[in-house]
C-alpha cells in the first residue's frame, strides 16, 4: 500500500473544501429564488391592498359627494357643496389609478361604476344642484330614490372591486404562506441532503487520507524497525569482533571503541570520545621507542587502506605495553567522500612469544640433532686414542709405537677441531662481526663429515678464501648446517653435495637481490630427487616438513628468518626430472648489511 502522497492529499483537500462552498452557493441560489418568488407574492398582495385602498378611497369620495349634495340639498348653502366639488379631482385620480391597476374581472365593475357615477353625476347630481341653485325643490322622493339607487349601485360596484381584491388578497396571503412553508421544507430537505452528501463525501475522502497516512506511518515504523535491527546487528557484530575496533571522524578524533579496543588500550569509550587518536592509541617502535605514525593519520594522508609497520608496541593508559598488529581503512559515504576512519588492531604479544618459543625450540632441536652427531664425532676418536694409549703402555714395538702415536695424534686433532666448531656454534654475538665464509663453511663441513659418511654422500667445496661478510656467526652457522644437512639427506646414498661461495662485488645485478649491494652468495647444491612444485610453495612455512616425524619442519622457516635479519635472501631452485635433477639453494648475504632487528 502506498503512503500519503502530497499531491493526492492536496486534491482531496480541495475537493472537501469546494464541495460545501458549491453546496452553499446552491442553497443560496435556491433561497434567493424562493425569496424572489415570495417577494412577487408580497408585491401582488400589496397591489391588492392598493386596489382596496383606492376603491375605498373612491367610495369615500362618492360618499363625500353625496354628503355634500345632501348638505346642499338641505341647506341650499353652496358652502355645503364644497365636499362634492373637492371630491371630484381626487376621485378622478383614484379612478384613474384604479383603472391602471385593475384586474380584468374588476375592470367590468369599475367601468360600470364609472358609468353609474357619470350617470349619477350628470343625470342626478348636477341637475339637482342646478335645481337647488335655481331655488327649486328637490324633495321628490323618486328622484332621491333613483339618486340613492344609483349611489347604492355605485357602492356595490366598488364593493365588488374591494371584495374581489380582498379575496385576491386572502388568496395571495394563503399562497404566500404556502410558499413560505414550501421554501422552509425545501431548504430543510436540501440542507439536510447536502449536509449528508458533504458529510459522506468528506468522510470518504478523509478516510482515504487517514488510511494513506496510516500506511505512511506503518512504512516509517517498518523502516525505523529495519534500521534499528540493522543497527543492532552491526552493533552486535562490532561487539563480537575479537579484535579491537576504533572509529574516528575525518579529523582523527575517536568516535567509537568496541570492548576489545577498550580493554587493549585501557581507555573507556566515554573517556576516549572526541580525543585525538594518538592520545588514546599511543604506539611506538619496539626497538627505537620512537612514536609510530598511527593508522588514522596514514589513512588521512594516503586515503586508502593501510597497515602499520611491524614491531609496534601499544602503550596502554596504565603504561603497560602490548605488541600489536593493525590496519586502518577510510569510511566513505555514497558520494565517495571520507566520512570517517576505522582502525582494527589486535594483541599479538602471545603470538610473538609463541614464535620466539618456537624459534628457541628449533634451536634446541637443531642442537639436539647436532648433539647426537657430536657425541659420535668426539667419543669415537677419544675411544681410539684411549685404546692406542693402552696398547702403547702394554708393549709395543718401536715401529708400532710410531704408528700408534701418529693415529692418536690425528684423532686428537680431529676432536679438537670438532669441539671448537661445536662450541663456537653456540656463542652469540651482540653485534655483527666479519665472518669469513670459507672458514665457517670449512668448519661446518668438517663437523658434518661423519654425517656425510653415514649417509654415503660425497661433498665438494669451492670456497674462495677472502670472502667475508658482516653477520652473527652462530646464527649463520645454524642456517648453513640446516641447509647442508638438507642437501646431504636429499642426495642420499651415492649422491653428492656441492658447496660454493660466489663473491658479488657492487654493481652486479642479481635476479633476487633487492639492491645492487656488494656481498656474497653461498650455493649449496645436491643431486637428489629435487623438490616437486606442490611442495615448493610451502617450503618456508613453519611446521612444513617432508621428513615425516623426524623433521620438526621449522628449519627453513628459521633459516629464512635469520637470513632476512641479515638483510639477505634465500632462493631455492629445483628440478625433479632430467639428468640434472636436484636442488640448489642460494643464500645471498650483504657485505655490510643493515641488520633488520627482529626481521621476520
Amino acid at each position, binding site marked *: 500500500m502506498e503512503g500519503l502522497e502530497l499531491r493526492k492529499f492536496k486534491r482531496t483537500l480541495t475537493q472537501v473544501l469546494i464541495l460545501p462552498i458549491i453546496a452553499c452557493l446552491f442553497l443560496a441560489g435556491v433561497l434567493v429564488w424562493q425569496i424572489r418568488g415570495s417577494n412577487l407574492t408580497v408585491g401582488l398582495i400589496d397591489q391588492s391592498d392598493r386596489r382596496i385602498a383606492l376603491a375605498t378611497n373612491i367610495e369615500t369620495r362618492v360618499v363625500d359627494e353625496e354628503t355634500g349634495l345632501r348638505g346642499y340639498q338641505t341647506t341650499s348653502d353652496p358652502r355645503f357643496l364644497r365636499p362634492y366639488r373637492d371630491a371630484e379631482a381626487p376621485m378622478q385620480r383614484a379612478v384613474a389609478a384604479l383603472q391602471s391597476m385593475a384586474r380584468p374581472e374588476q375592470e367590468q365593475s369599475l367601468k360600470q361604476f364609472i358609468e353609474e357615477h357619470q350617470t349619477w353625476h350628470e343625470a342626478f347630481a348636477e341637475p339637482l344642484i342646478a335645481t337647488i341653485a335655481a331655488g327649486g325643490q328637490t324633495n321628490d322622493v323618486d328622484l332621491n330614490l333613483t339618486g340613492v339607487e344609483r349611489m347604492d349601485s355605485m357602492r356595490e360596484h366598488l364593493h365588488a372591486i374591494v371584495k374581489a381584491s380582498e379575496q385576491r388578497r386572502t388568496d395571495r396571503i394563503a399562497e404566500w404562506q404556502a410558499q413560505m412553508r414550501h421554501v422552509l421544507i425545501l431548504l430543510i430537505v436540501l440542507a439536510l441532503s447536502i449536509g449528508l452528501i458533504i458529510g459522506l463525501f468528506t468522510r470518504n475522502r478523509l478516510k482515504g487520507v487517514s488510511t494513506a497516512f496510516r500506511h505512511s506511518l506503518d512504512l516509517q515504523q517498518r523502516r525505523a524497525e529495519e534500521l534499528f535491527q540493522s543497527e543492532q546487528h552491526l552493533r552486535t557484530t562490532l561487539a563480537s569482533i575479537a579484535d579491537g575496533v576504533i572509529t574516528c571522524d575525518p579529523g582523527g578524533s575517536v568516535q567509537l571503541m568496541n570492548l576489545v579496543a577498550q580493554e587493549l588500550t585501557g581507555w573507556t569509550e566515554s573517556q576516549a570520545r572526541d580525543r585525538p587518536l594518538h592520545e588514546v592509541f599511543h604506539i611506538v617502535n619496539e626497538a627505537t621507542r620512537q612514536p609510530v605514525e598511527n593508522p588514522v593519520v596514514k589513512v588521512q594522508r594516503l586515503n586508502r587502506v593501510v597497515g602499520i609497520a611491524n614491531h609496534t608496541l601499544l602503550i596502554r593508559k596504565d603504561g603497560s605495553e602490548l605488541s600489536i598488529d593493525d590496519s586502518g581503512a577510510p569510511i566513505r559515504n555514497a558520494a565517495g567522500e571520507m566520512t570517517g576512519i576505522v582502525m582494527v588492531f589486535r594483541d599479538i604479544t602471545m603470538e610473538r612469544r609463541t614464535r620466539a618459543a618456537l624459534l628457541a625450540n628449533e634451536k634446541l632441536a637443531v642442537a639436539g640433532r647436532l648433539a*647426537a652427531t657430536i*657425541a*659420535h664425532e*668426539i*667419543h*669415537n*676418536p*677419544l*675411544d*681410539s686414542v*684411549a*685404546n*692406542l*694409549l*693402552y*696398547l702403547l703402555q*702394554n*708393549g709395543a714395538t718401536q715401529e708400532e709405537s710410531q704408528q700408534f702415536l701418529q*693415529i692418536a695424534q690425528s*684423532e686428537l686433532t680431529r676432536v679438537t677441531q670438532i669441539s671448537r666448531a661445536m662450541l663456537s656454534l653456540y656463542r652469540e654475538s651482540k653485534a655483527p662481526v666479519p665472518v669469513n665464509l670459507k672458514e665457517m663453511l670449512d668448519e661446518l663441513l668438517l663437523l658434518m663429515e661423519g654425517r656425510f*659418511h*653415514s*649417509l*654415503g654422500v660425497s661433498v665438494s667445496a669451492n670456497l674462495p678464501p677472502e670472502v667475508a661478510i658482516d653477520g652473527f656467526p652462530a646464527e649463520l652457522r645454524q642456517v648453513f648446517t640446516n641447509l647442508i644437512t638438507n642437501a646431504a639427506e636429499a642426495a642420499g646414498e651415492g649422491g653428492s653435495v656441492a658447496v660454493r661461495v660466489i663473491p658479488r662485488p657492487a654493481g652486479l645485478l642479481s635476479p633476487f637481490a633487492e639492491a645492487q649491494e656488494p656481498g656474497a652468495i653461498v650455493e649449496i647444491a645436491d643431486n637428489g630427487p629435487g623438490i616437486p612444485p606442490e611442495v615448493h610453495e610451502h617450503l618456508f612455512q613453519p611446521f612444513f616438513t617432508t621428513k615425516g616425524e623426524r623433521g620438526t619442519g621449522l628449519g627453513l622457516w628459521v633459516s629464512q628468518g635469520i637470513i632476512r635479519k641479515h638483510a639477505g635472501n634465500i632462493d631455492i631452485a629445483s628440478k625433479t626430472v632430467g639428468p640434472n635433477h636436484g636442488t640448489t639453494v642460494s643464500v645471498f648475504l650483504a657485505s655490510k648489511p643493515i641488520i633488520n632487528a627482529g626481521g621476520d
Partner: protein
Amino acid sequence: MMGNKSRMVLCVDDEAVGLRVRKLLLERAGYQVLTAIDGYSGLELFAAHPVEAVVLDYSMPGMHGGEVASRMRQTKPEIPILLLSAYVGLPDEVSSLVDIYMTKGEGAPALLDKLDSLLSVPAASD
C-alpha cells in the same frame, strides 16, 4: 688375562679408524677378531663363522646396532653381545637386547674386562 684360547670375536663399527684400533687391542689381548664396517656384513660374518661374542657399535648408517642385535638374537641368541655406544642413554628396548652396554671412552681395560666376563659366564667359573 688367561684362558682366552683364541676366542673368536666379531667387531662391528662404521668408524674405520676406531675399528682398526679396537681390532689391534683385542688381538693383543689374545682374541681372534673379525671386523665388519656395517650391519649387513656383520650379520653375514656372524652367520658364517663360529663367533663367540660380538662387540657392536650402536650408531651406524643403514641398520643401527639395536637392529643388528635383534637379528643376531633371532639366529644365535646364546652368543653374548656387547653394545658400544658414543651416546649416553639408549632406549630400554635396545639395552635389553644386549648382554652388556657400555660407552666408548670408558677406556680399554673396561672393554677387555667386560668382554672377558661375557665369555666366562656361560662356562663353568674359572
